[in-house]
């Protein structure tokens, strides 16, 4: 039994007018994204018109029918294949270049890739067209286009706002016009597109102005998630002592890491070093290989069976020498007991200028060190008693040998990984250590702000360079790493150091008459240490304090950024130009082997653009013509008659006649024999009734008038010269 069928009558072909616009938007978005990839260099002026032409051509072919679509698609494929064959050598070189850009560690010479981009564009347009317009399958492409900007951000490529706008138009536009079952209406698509653009236009200035504040909830969420994870997993908070320079944010949990006990309250901040960095590679400090250096020292000293004393002497010589230096009031060393909160001691934390007084590996209740505070250090190697002179000489020999090795070991920088830092140092040549220190501190203060949530460093970007040249925001690990690298670039032995920085106010009187402090992960810190003559490794604090000022004191140097005057008066602060990338030449330079050589490029480009414009214009006129004819096919007799008179005027037939003349029918029949006089009279009758009659026009009358119009059209068309025929069809769209 047949069932009742109910369905909605859909609009005809005119409903899909917005599709080519959305298609083109998607394509342009992709091209603009690709242009931001380092190493990608192609001419937008060549590729964008080609993309527009392809989108328009395919869409027009689709309106003509599946046969035309298949023919055009096949033509594209053939054209691409022929082009690829004839230009195969150049294309192969370009593809090889693109492969190296993405997958090779070396930086290839910049090459213009317009040819391969044209091929890629043709492929992308065809793919988008087939997926969106033929298969009407929006989800895969929406997913792809949505993920691309996110992947770009992750990879460290810039995301152009226009690229985002175009991609959003593509995703949102097709999303809007794809109803539950196919197209809904082009009016919906246009409204959605306008709305999307307006929303982006409004959002951009707001985002640019309040970007920091808008990001805060994301950081809060990350922090909360981090704390919850630590609580439930029970794992210890990450510290800096693994040598890794964090590529993200730093959150604290307040967990107690160790308990300290001193004989008196320290008068200065106490640096407990647990890690010293040796080589730097890709955001990671490898542990300093002092053991290797000491072996080399032993070889240099050649003390034979006494060589095993070198390690112990090296670790305690500053403490020992300071103890024996002749002074009016010899300082009293402080004793500190460090008791780690946990089952094992992952690292050995010790203050500077100290000596271990208990075995840290076996002490379950903690280990003890004696140390001198930096303010009590006065290493005058010559001013020692005679009884110590021999011991002094031995220590001195160790020191000299070690200093020699340290100068070679701790001045290396992988310049190819940090080219901008290397260029900064090269552009500001300095020799004096104090001048170098001042320069580093001013650079850090002038180009970065302290923040524990500086955001993530994109993949492929060095974290230190990202800190100093891109984000301009970071915390102690970034400051310390940047300073260490800069010191090394200037030839000063420097190491990244990490551990804990315990301020004096953390200590409180204990029950046993000592001073105790609970060291939490909030006191974890990183700093740079430089090898000073006589003093050895000396900490240099390069991280700004709560006021944003950096104060550095080490023997022979007392400097604070706060003492340098107002910021605007500081001529010496280097302002780092972040616009120029040193990885590749500036993008707007035409690379060697450009697709458009300077001599012939200009006219070839213009010719190409003119051809594109002409073809596009033709397609546009054809689409317009089809729209007009479609509307005409359902027009009433009055509109059709007006069109008829317009056609007569264009063809120079029946000049001066308006259809109201008594002999109109006879004269027209003579001019246009394809329609008889009685038929013209019928046309006039129907049109008059429609204009002045009481009832509604008859559909049969409308159809008759349209049929007469078609016959008259064909008759007149055949008698026109070729240039008027073009205008007749494409310009006026009579036929």
């Amino acid at each position, binding site marked *: 039994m047949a*069932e009742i069928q109910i369905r*909605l009558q859909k609009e005809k072909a005119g409903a899909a007018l917005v599709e080519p616009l959305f298609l083109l938007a998607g394509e342009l978005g992709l091209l603009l994204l690709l242009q931001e990839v380092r190493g990608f260099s192609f001419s937008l002026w060549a590729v964008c018109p080609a993309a527009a032409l392809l989108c328009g051509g395919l869409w027009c072919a689709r309106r003509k029918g599946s046969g035309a679509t298949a023919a055009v698609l096949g033509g594209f494929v053939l054209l691409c294949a022929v082009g690829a064959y004839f230009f195969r050598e150049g294309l192969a070189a370009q593809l090889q270049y693109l492969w190296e850009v993405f997958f090779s560690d070396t930086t290839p010479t910049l090459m213009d890739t317009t040819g391969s981009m044209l091929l890629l564009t043709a492929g992308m347009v065809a793919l988008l067209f087939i997926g969106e317009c033929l298969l009407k399958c929006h989800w895969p492409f929406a997913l792809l286009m949505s993920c691309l*900007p996110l992947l770009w*951000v992750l990879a460290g490529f810039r995301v152009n706002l226009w690229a985002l706008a175009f991609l959003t138009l593509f995703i949102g536009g097709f999303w*809007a016009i794809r109803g539950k079952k196919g197209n809904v209406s082009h009016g919906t698509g246009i409204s959605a597109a306008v709305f999307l653009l307006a929303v982006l236009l409004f959002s951009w200035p707001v985002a640019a102005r309040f970007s920091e504040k808008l990001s805060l909830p994301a950081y809060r969420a990350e922090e909360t998630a981090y704390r919850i994870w630590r609580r439930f997993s029970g794992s210890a908070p990450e510290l800096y002592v693994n040598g890794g320079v964090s590529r993200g944010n730093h959150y604290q949990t307040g967990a107690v890491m160790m308990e300290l006990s001193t004989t008196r309250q320290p008068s200065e901040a106490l640096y407990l070093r647990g890690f010293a960095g040796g080589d730097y590679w890709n955001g990671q400090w490898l542990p300093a290989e002092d053991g290797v250096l000491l072996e080399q020292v032993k070889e240099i000293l050649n003390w034979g069976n006494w060589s095993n004393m070198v390690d112990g002497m090296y670790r305690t010589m500053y403490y020992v020498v300071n103890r024996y230096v002749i002074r009016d009031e010899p300082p009293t060393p402080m004793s500190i007991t460090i008791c780690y909160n946990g089952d094992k001691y992952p690292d050995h934390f010790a203050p500077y200028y100290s000596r271990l007084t208990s075995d840290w590996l076996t002490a379950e209740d903690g280990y003890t060190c004696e140390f001198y505070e930096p303010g009590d250090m006065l290493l005058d190697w010559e001013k020692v008693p005679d009884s110590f002179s021999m011991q002094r000489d031995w220590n001195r020999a160790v020191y000299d040998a070690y200093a020699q090795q340290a100068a070679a070991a701790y001045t290396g920088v992988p310049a190819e990984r940090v080219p901008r830092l290397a260029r900064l140092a090269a552009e500001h040549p300095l020799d004096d250590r104090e001048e170098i220190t001042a320069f580093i501190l001013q650079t850090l203060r002038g180009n970065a702000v302290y923040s524990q949530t500086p*955001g993530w460093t994109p993949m492929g970007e060095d974290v230190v360079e990202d800190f100093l040249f891109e*984000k301009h925001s970071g915390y102690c690990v970034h400051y310390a790493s940047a300073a260490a690298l800069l010191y090394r670039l200037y030839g000063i032995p420097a190491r990244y150091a990490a551990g804990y920085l315990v301020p004096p106010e953390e200590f409180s009187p204990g029950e046993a008459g000592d001073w105790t402090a609970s060291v939490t992960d909030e006191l974890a810190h990183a700093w740079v240490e430089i090898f000073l003559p006589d003093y050895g490794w000396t900490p240099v604090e390069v991280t700004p304090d709560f006021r944003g000022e950096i104060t550095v004191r080490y023997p022979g140097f007392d400097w604070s950024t706060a003492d340098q005057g107002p910021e605007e008066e500081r001529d010496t602060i280097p302002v780092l130009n972040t616009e120029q990338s040193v990885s590749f030449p500036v993008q707007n330079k035409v690379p060697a082997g450009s697709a458009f050589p300077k001599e012939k490029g200009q006219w070839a480009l213009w010719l190409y653009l003119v051809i594109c414009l002409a073809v596009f214009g033709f397609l546009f006129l054809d689409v317009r013509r089809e729209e007009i004819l479609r509307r005409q096919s359902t027009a009433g007799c009055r509109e059709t008659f007006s069109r008829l008179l317009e056609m007569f005027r264009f063809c120079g037939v029946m000049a001066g006649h308006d259809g109201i003349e008594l002999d109109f029918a006879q004269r027209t029949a003579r001019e246009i024999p394809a329609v008889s006089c009685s038929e013209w009279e019928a046309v006039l009758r129907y049109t008059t009734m429609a204009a002045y009659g009481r009832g509604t026009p008859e559909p049969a009358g409308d159809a008759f008038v349209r049929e007469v119009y078609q016959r008259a059209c064909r008759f007149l068309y055949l008698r026109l010269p070729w240039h008027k025929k073009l205008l007749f069809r494409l310009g006026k769209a009579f036929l």
Partner: protein
Amino acid sequence: MRKAAFFAFFLLAYYLAGMYRSQPLMALCLGMLLLAGTAFLRTRQLRKGISASFPQTHRELIQGKEAVFPVCIENRRPLGAGRCILTLEAGYGDTEGITISHLESSVRYGATDLAVSLFVPDCGLLFLRVTALEGRDWFSLFRFKKRWDAETTLAVLPLPEERLHLSFFSVSGDAALAGLAKQTAGEDIHEIRQLREYRIGDQNRRIHWNVSARTGKLWLKELEGDDPPFAALYLRWGERPLSRRGKSDFFRLFHALAMGLLEQGLRLETVWRDIEGRMIRQKADSSEGVHSLLLSLYQLGAEGFPTEPSTMEDCQGAFMLDTELGWYWEEALIYRFSSDKLEEEIREKNFWL
């Protein structure tokens, strides 16, 4: 699904925009938030302002032909816009199955007429009902659904050109009898249009006694100026309720028979019993009259044909049509039509009466 994907993407993009300090991405996230807010607002507005109704114009359709039927969707809220899905139910008022269809269209401020294409295979009274309105914004992020009750009734008529091919065996067609009529009447033969068999109720003075005597049957004179005679048609209901198809066939056959009789210059008087057992008589002398008759029968069919077997008192000189598609003349079966081949039989069979 779309909403989940949208907000999942938003969260991911926002997180990445915050972590990587990407202003374009943050602008996109802000834009998405605005979009979602606006979409929600417009959906709520659309829910409050949307309504559906049937315009009063179309009331009849032709069976088996696709017709375009307007349904008006109106949105009274200027801010409301999006897509609307109408749930349309169509049926014949019986329990044989209701067709439910969901039609989607975009909606803006003001009234929108949807051109609904309707194909109805059976004759009868068809009800069309909008039972629910579902809406969503352009991006299908938010949706609403509200019950609605708008109903209209359509009469699905048989094909107007469908009629039984009838030929009456009348005296005017028989040369011998025509000659008799001429010779014996002594009247101007142009006055006599035709002779037909006598029926109860006819005037005695119109009996053509000479022809009647010759043939042994009573024949009546129909003069040129006379009104066309009535053909009585009794409708006989069956004992079992009719299916939707059965009713449609019955209506179709009735219409074809009525139009065939009218074509022969007759007027139709249809007689049937309603549910309460009352005798209903209705006359028709034109296609409009048959149309009106049909509508009356549709009403009866919608309520349900009486299932008690009716006793036809006196079918002499009258046609009878039963719900089993049997066509009788005075209790004698002329032909029983088949439901499967009804159209073919109506189209091709010729009946000499």
